[in-house]
């Protein structure tokens, strides 16, 4: 009998939980939230200066009104990067003709991945670089940026090719707030992420 009650109790809790979340009106804003008096301060991606595959300056704050999909990689990566890129390509295919969406892949290997190398990589990936940028920058800035996107990146001589990093794909809104992510190594996670991106687009462009 006791078991029966605890079971119905947990069912009730589950139903309450589902009830609360049945209509998610907005995606969460990820990161620390600080309340100062009447102001609520959200985690903002810093406006770092990057250099793209055409040697052009790219300021994060200059991405006017775009929803941005972000990842971190390096071109000579023998571990997870190709799989993440394959999933980024799925996202690219889905939003290729949607001008509200942009994509940025940051190299974490500043020594090897020059602008020339990035340019060739983008070309061989066969994507439109107006939509999908491949960027480098000051190493410290890129590593700091990865941290701000909640992506772990560590230079590790024992890791394959010297870097240990996460294959997360991050979703940033037009106000430089992080609104979601998926695991770029897991195709199912990316499929679910399509809906997250669609939802943000609905929220931002009513």
């Amino acid at each position, binding site marked *: 009998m006791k078991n029966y009650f605890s079971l119905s109790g947990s069912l009730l809790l589950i139903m309450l939980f589902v009830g609360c979340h049945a209509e998610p009106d907005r995606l969460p804003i990820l990161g620390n939230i600080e309340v100062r008096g009447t102001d609520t301060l959200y985690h903002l991606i810093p406006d770092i200066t990057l250099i793209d595959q055409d040697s052009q300056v790219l300021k994060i704050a200059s991405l006017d009104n775009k929803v941005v999909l972000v990842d971190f990689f390096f071109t000579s990566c*023998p571990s997870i990067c190709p799989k993440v890129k394959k999933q980024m390509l799925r996202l690219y295919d889905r939003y290729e003709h949607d001008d509200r969406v942009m994509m940025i892949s940051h190299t974490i290997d500043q020594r090897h991945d020059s602008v020339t190398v990035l340019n060739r990589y983008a070309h061989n990936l066969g994507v439109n670089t107006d939509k999908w940028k491949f960027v480098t920058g000051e190493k410290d800035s890129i590593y700091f940026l990865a941290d701000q996107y909640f992506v772990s990146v560590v230079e590790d001589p024992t890791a394959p090719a010297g870097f240990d990093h996460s294959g997360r794909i991050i979703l940033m809104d037009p106000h430089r707030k992080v609104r979601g992510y998926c695991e770029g190594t897991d195709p199912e996670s990316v499929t679910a992420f399509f809906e997250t991106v669609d939802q943000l687009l609905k929220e931002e462009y009513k």
Partner: protein
Amino acid sequence: MVVSCTSQPYSQGHAIYTAHCEGCHMEDGSGLADLIPPLDSSRLTLSDPSKLVCLIRKGLPFNTFTGQQMPSNTSMTDVELANLINFLGVEYGLNPQTIKVTEIKKMLAACQSE
């Protein structure tokens, strides 16, 4: 994989593929755009096992077509190499004859002297 378990006798070769190759060449061998070659179209290497043996063991520092490098696999034993190549042969149907370990050893000796 594309081929079902029953027609792929090289389960060890499959495991070696998963551990060493799948990260770049993908589970289905499809590769990545013009960056990582798909295995089913790599007829040159797959039709000539001696080239494939050398390529897998020594890697390629710079592929002039893709701009990418292929890592070497110096820790792979000759037996593992034979299993892998026989797996690829069955999987992609391009190299149906079975390669023996003794042949692998000869091929390796030949590519090292190049």
